[in-house]
């Protein structure tokens, strides 16, 4: 499965970090750490084992910046 994070929508609320700490992190500036790897849209493969946490992250993101692709 894949995760897609729209970094233009994301406002670094970090709620995804609480839901899926293995997949998301904030950097020292308090910004989503994926920002160092992409500017507009971040896409990555995610292990099926993390599916539940990933879906929770997508659900709680207040900006709806996270999309999960099966």
């Amino acid at each position: 499965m894949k995760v897609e994070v729209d970094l233009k929508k994301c406002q670094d609320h970090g709620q995804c970090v609480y839901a899926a700490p293995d997949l998301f992190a904030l950097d020292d500036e308090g910004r989503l750490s994926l920002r160092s790897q992409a500017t507009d849209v971040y896409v990555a493969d995610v292990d099926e084992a993390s599916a539940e946490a990933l879906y929770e992250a997508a659900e709680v993101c207040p900006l709806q910046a996270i999309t999960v692709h099966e």
Partner: protein
Amino acid sequence: MTVTTAGPASVTGDLLPFRDPGFRADPYPYYARLRREHPVYRHPAGLYVVSRYEDVARLIRNPTLSVQQLDFGPAAPIHHTMLGKDAPDHTRLRRITNRWFTPKAVEEWSKVMRASVEAVLDEVEKGDGALDAADGLSLKCTFETTCHIFGIEPTDMDTIQRKTYEIGLSLGPGGNDEEARATTEAFAWFAGHIRRLVSDKRAHPGEGLIDAFIAAQDEGRMTEEEVVHTIFLFFAVGHLDVKHLINHGIWLLTQQPGLFAAYRDEPEARPGIINEILRIDTPESMVVRLTTQDTVIGATTVPAGEALALLIASANRDPEVFADPDTFDHTRPLAAGQHLAFGSGMHGCAGQVLARAEADIVFSSIVNRFSGVELAGEPAYAHTEFLRTITHLPVRFR
């Protein structure tokens, strides 16, 4: 207290007269001067006021800043809520409530809000089209929605509004002794009222947010104090800022017939219109944080243990980010969506999906049903240095 640069300390006079009625009515020229001349301003009350977008946006996400160590004065009970806690307590409390305000959950709450708004407008249409939109629409409908989420009957609305406002008076840095007393009394009233609601709920369980808090307490994930004060928090945030978004939006519709038409005819413009209402008259002027280490802000180094007031309402008018910032323009490029009205970072607003949905329901229902709206009297205000508030908004729909 030590000040490590001459910048902020060299200012004489009060550039941010929190209690001045002129300032409260229209703080924006004061903010503009601060941004230009004193972007990090040491206020006579002791705190450092930060007014430029770039600084505010960076600091509001700075994980070294604390809210738990802040002295909230008479509003100290807020430390029993996520708003007054740092990680890991903040994380624990926020995770309990986050699921209740996801877009999927908000679809459910929107049905309640829509029914409430339609019921009010039905009555308006039967009558002469006149309404005090502040209490009769914005407060009533958001309050009923909050109570539905809680799983309780919508009772004591006027008292809850008044007591919340009295607590709000002490949230900004400009409070006085009389306001502090009112705040203490209001917290005591809420504690009594909420403990009654909770024991009622224990006797007659349901599936609301209050039931979820009771379950969390029984499982050891929340303390009793946290349950009581978190319920207070949602009573407060359930109407306070969103009411201003709706009221200011309706007022703008009375002033700009073009906006009324745009909201009706261009559904794709609606999110941008809501963002611009939030930007141009940001309901909550500031968020406050405590430094825990030397913190560099532009040319100023603020030492540990100092309170920072991050003026989100000023950041949202910074011409460096928002061209012609004092003009309402909902067609601003996307970057303008990055206003800071909901804060950002860890404490970023937990209810922003709900707030946007509630505002959209009100504005959509109005433009779909009526051909225009005008003022039917003078609006009345009770702005503080912390919160924008319209207390009366007499309008007539046609």
